[in-house]
């Protein structure tokens, strides 16, 4: 991962990567979603799956002031999620419980290039995200179909998931996920490496 320092960016404020053409290049998730896949049905399942919300209070207490501020005016189903993009920037946003992580990126127009090319239909691996081990183990089971697409992902790790298949739940509050590097990032790193050897 390239370390360029972590900057806090409230995606609800000045949108990173936003320029004169608005949302160019980000997936849309509009009415055109083709052939709805048996997605995990985030919004439908999450309420039941949340259970007794046992450790919710604990998590709540650990929240950062930024999330705290959000809580003060928003409903209970707001969850803070951090994405570290390919440039090493930390993008922090407030997600709604039940949204998929792909939807979080798209709805908040987060600066992650080419994310969600197939718009959440399990037909590409562009919404590949890397979790920390503990969080990964707590996620719902992976379907064969998701594993199939992950097999084609760049920078696959043992804790990789597709953002379109992971739904935000309350226990995830404060979650940090990482976007893997793509070929051009690796190339740039190589070039930097070469230069530093010269």
């Amino acid at each position: 991962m390239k370390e360029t320092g972590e900057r806090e960016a409230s995606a609800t404020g000045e949108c990173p990567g936003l320029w004169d053409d608005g949302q160019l290049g980000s997936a849309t998730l509009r009415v055109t979603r083709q052939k709805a896949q048996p997605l995990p049905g985030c919004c439908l399942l999450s309420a039941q799956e949340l259970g007794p919300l046992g450790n919710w209070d604990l998590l709540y207490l650990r929240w950062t002031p930024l999330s705290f501020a959000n809580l003060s005016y928003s409903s209970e189903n707001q969850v803070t999620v951090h994405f570290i993009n390919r440039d090493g920037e930390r993008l922090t946003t407030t997600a709604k419980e039940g949204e998929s992580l792909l939807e979080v990126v798209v709805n908040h127009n987060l600066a992650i290039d080419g994310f969600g090319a197939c718009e959440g239909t399990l037909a590409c691996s562009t919404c590949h995200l890397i979790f920390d081990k503990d969080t990964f183990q707590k996620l719902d089971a992976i379907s064969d179909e998701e594993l199939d697409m992950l097999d084609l992902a760049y920078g696959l790790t043992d804790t990789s998931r597709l953002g379109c298949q992971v739904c935000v739940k309350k226990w995830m509050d404060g979650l940090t996920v990482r976007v893997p590097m793509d070929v051009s990032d690796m190339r740039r790193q190589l070039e930097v490496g070469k230069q530093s050897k010269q």
Partner: protein
Amino acid sequence: MAGAGGRAPLGLRRWLSSAAPAPRVCVVGSGPAGFYTAQHILKHHGGALVDIYEKLPVPFGLVRFGVAPDHPEVKNVTNTFTQTARSGRCGFYGNVTVGRDVTVPELQRAYHAVVLSYGAEDNRVLGIPGENLPGVYSARAFVGWYNGLPENQDLKPDLSCETALILGHGNVALDIARILLSPLQLLRKTDITDSSLAALACSKVKRVWLVGRRGPLQVAFTIKELREMINLPGARAVLDPADFTGLESAVKDASRPRKRLTELMIKTALEKPVEMQAAAAGAAAPREWGLKFQRSPQEVLPSADGRRARGVRMALTRLEGLGDSAKAIPTGDVEELECGLVLSSIGYRSLPLDPAVPFDSQRGVIPNSSGRVEGVPGLYCSGWVKRGPTGVIITTMNDSFDTAQSLLEDLQGGVLDLSPSREGFGLVESILHSRGVRPVSFSDWEKIDAAEVARGKAAGKPREKIVDPAEMLRIIGH
């Protein structure tokens, strides 16, 4: 404020506020490589103007003409491409054949940078006797036929035989096998062309063999497509367990994709007896498909009257070496496989576009370094013409971002001549006008698109593709 660091310096994003002339970039080809390259440049350079040229009156290249009709999810990428094309800084000029209507040197005079993303429009040939017999088709032409590619509409493949043989173990081979064996009611809901659907409705094909020179560990298709084939309703997988003996341990240390892919084949091969019992019980799937390994085509055999293919003679092979680099060496033994339909799916191939552009005919690519065409400053390439005809959408996306990044670095580093006399499409327009070529704009395409969607609606399809360019042009009043 995030996004200030990283891929593109803030100065480029804030281009509009400076007095410098806007860089004009030309992209040749409107498939995924062209659109992803354009998208990345536009997104990371706030002032760049990008014009995309396309040979056909309609955009999106292989997303429209290559992606299988029953894979509409992949076609969702066109929503993002459409956003890019609608950007005020992006132009689309369809119906313009670069190399004929306008040359690459002419484009280089009109633009500060030219990106070649024109893909691989040809296919590799078998180079064996009988290859040109009726009943033998290239996979590329067959895919173009069912996907409505204008140049393949006269293919009219003969589907009157029971057994088809596909030479190749890639995703295109599996796409074709699936289209040949899919229940008609599934295809009917896709954007497959009406005429190919009618031909498939009369098809007698009920058995498809996919034949490769090498073994199960060398197959090029991906697991999603294999699983789809295994789960295809009404079709039974016929895999010989003997082909997979000992492979379980061989892939123990292989990469996860290769391991899972191989394990799925093994599992399917071993499940066969159970399925055969079901078949015996009367629940028989009327159609079947299978993989054959270590067979190299030697000759397409003619029927008695010499007028069509009746089979393929195969040289059996043994493998020398391991993994991807294993080579198929003929053992001297041969075998004849009976079939009435032969589809050669052994790879696509790029063609040189213009004498002014270097081309590596051995590898079928434009020689380049990170997308910079060797020895020609200001000229770039992306997609299949850059790295060869392989990979899935994410491969082309990353590859195109890589080329766009090189171009942005060159812009920033002052490598490109940004003289204001390169006035972009203004200059090309007069050239095209003098040659009697009338380009199709993106809003023109949106009219064609609307007409296609309207026609499809009546038939319960996402669209009915218009396959005749003249008809497309009539719709937009050209």
